[in-house]
């Protein structure tokens, strides 16, 4: 186990990177503490697999260093970093039995046979694979094969971190939940650092203690699921997490306060505003928008009933604002006005939170 640090790491797949677009990973420094359950969340192409492969050693970053505890491992190959990785598609050695699959990493490292046997059986029991040990690995279902992939990482006693690259992609939906619970259980049992890459926010938010959200090669926020939800530090986090996503509305600053729709919007946290030509926006989640007697006048456009609440789409001028209406509350019949909860209203300059 160890603490992983990335210092000023950036990566380009192109030989001579010119502009911003050539960098798959923009300069970043991230720390992963020992024993944490992390999710690396972001849309396709945001650089999360690149980041994962830099940590595991399958990729050497164009610039920057990677540290495992006090050791600089940037140039160390994967098999010497004591990491394990589970890929998107199950990777098993088809011609071997489940037992031999699990024993393979240990045999390659010259571990004694009785030790191998004990370890394999231990891990197989943990993953509920005990009965399948003598079967040919090729005959298992997708989730069984992913467990084998995982098992090959767990058998090694010296594993620092286990990385998952969208491992549930090919699993049947009803088995996804089972496997996810198993992963969480394993994390609690073993305490190994786990980094889980996904584009699915449900997977990320349920598995991880800390979520690293990525967008276009940059880490936009690291925080607990609650933090990401309540205080998104970037408009992207607001869009990506939660359904429906955060409302983002243009605003201007006047007298130290944000203004939208002709009114001053009260906010709780102090505004660290820099003068400049940035794009200024207000962000507030639909959960924190309420109908009120005073506030911004809006026209109600659409109401979608989703059970315990309704998603109400309103319009102010050309801007759409969504809010959630609990089922016991009624829609205002006329002259609707909305109010943003000051504790959960953020101001963004060029996408980044400034309060």
């Amino acid at each position, binding site marked *: 186990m160890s603490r992983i640090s990335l210092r000023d790491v950036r990566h380009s797949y192109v030989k001579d990177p010119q502009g911003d677009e050539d960098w798959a990973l923009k300069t970043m420094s991230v720390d992963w503490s020992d024993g944490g359950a992390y999710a690396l969340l972001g849309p396709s192409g945001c650089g999360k697999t690149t980041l994962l492969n830099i940590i595991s050693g399958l990729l050497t970053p164009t610039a920057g260093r990677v540290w495992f505890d006090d050791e600089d491992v940037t140039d160390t190959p994967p098999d010497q970093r004591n990491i394990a990785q589970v890929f998107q*598609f199950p990777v098993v050695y088809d011609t071997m039995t489940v037992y031999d699959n699990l024993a393979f990493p240990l045999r390659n490292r010259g571990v004694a046979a009785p030790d191998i046997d004990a370890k394999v059986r231990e891990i197989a029991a943990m993953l509920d694979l005990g009965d399948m040990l003598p079967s040919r690995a090729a005959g298992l279902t997708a989730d069984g094969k992913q467990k084998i992939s995982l098992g090959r990482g767990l058998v090694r006693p010296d594993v620092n971190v286990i990385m998952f690259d969208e491992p549930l992609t*090919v699993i049947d939906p009803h088995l996804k939940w089972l496997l996810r619970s198993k992963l969480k259980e394993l994390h609690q049992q073993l305490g190994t650092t786990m980094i889980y890459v996904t584009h699915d926010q449900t997977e990320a938010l349920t598995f991880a203690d800390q979520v690293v959200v990525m967008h276009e090669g940059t880490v936009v926020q690291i925080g607990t699921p609650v933090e990401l939800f309540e205080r998104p530090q970037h408009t992207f986090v607001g869009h990506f997490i939660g359904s429906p996503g955060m409302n983002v509305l243009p605003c201007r600053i006047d007298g130290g306060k944000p203004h939208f729709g002709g009114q001053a919007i009260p906010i709780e946290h102090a505004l660290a505003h820099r003068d400049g030509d940035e794009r200024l926006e207000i962000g507030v989640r639909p959960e924190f928008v309420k109908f009120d007697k005073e506030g911004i006048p809006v026209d109600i456009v659409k109401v979608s009933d989703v059970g315990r609440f309704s998603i109400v789409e309103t319009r102010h001028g050309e801007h759409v604002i969504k809010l959630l209406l609990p089922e016991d509350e009624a829609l205002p019949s006329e002259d609707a006005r909305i109010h943003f909860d000051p504790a959960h209203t953020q101001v963004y300059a060029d996408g980044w939170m400034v309060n």
Partner: protein
Amino acid sequence: MRRITWLAPTLYILFLMLPIYWLLNMSFKTTNEILGTFTLWPQDFTLGNYVKIFTDPTWYTGYFNSLSYVIINTVISVTVALPAAYAFSRFRFLGDKHLFFWLLTNRMAPPAVFALPFFQLYSAVNLFDTHIAVALAHCLFNIPLAVWILEGFMSGVPKELDETAYVDGYPFWRFFVKIFMPTIAAGIGVAAFFCFMFSWVELLLAKTLTSVAAKPIAATMTRTASTAGYELGLLAAAGTLTIIPGAFVIYFVRNYIAKGFALGRV
């Protein structure tokens, strides 16, 4: 280790190039020189053989004819083989295993056996001496080959990939063309090239089914074995030129063949 692995393909290519160099050598000589002396480079360098081919219509139309039916055949073969291979790979249906093996058996039949019956068959349907006749006739052995190769590659793609795409709401044809085909790109490249190649070099059926209008280059080349003996220089030049279209084809599909299995995000 890297340095040494370079040696094998290099030696192999040198081995392949030696007779080809010899072929080229012969193509610039007169038949007399070829048979009379041993020279590494033509003593009497002559372009006469090539000139003959480029100026004599019976020669160069032979190339166009061959090219026509081969391209038609390759397109037909690969196009119909794709859905069939998919069915063999993904579905279980009545008689599927037997049907698959029956297809393979058609590749096992020596063309000589089919020469006369084909002549009768294609004359009966009024397709004698047409490009389409040869293109269709070559389907006999090329379609099974294409199905066979494509099925092999398709079976290497996890079935889960199909299902993941379906869940995302793609209609079948769009999934097949945009997602599935790129994953078996190597198989398509190889299948297309082999169909081209086997049709291109097939001599007997192509000769049997044509006389003038669609006469292939291979048939014209056998004319070089005339009463005066083998016109070796001419044959060598014709042989050299025959390589060129195929070289273009493999160049064209090289990226498909060398493309790794990207397993891209669905």
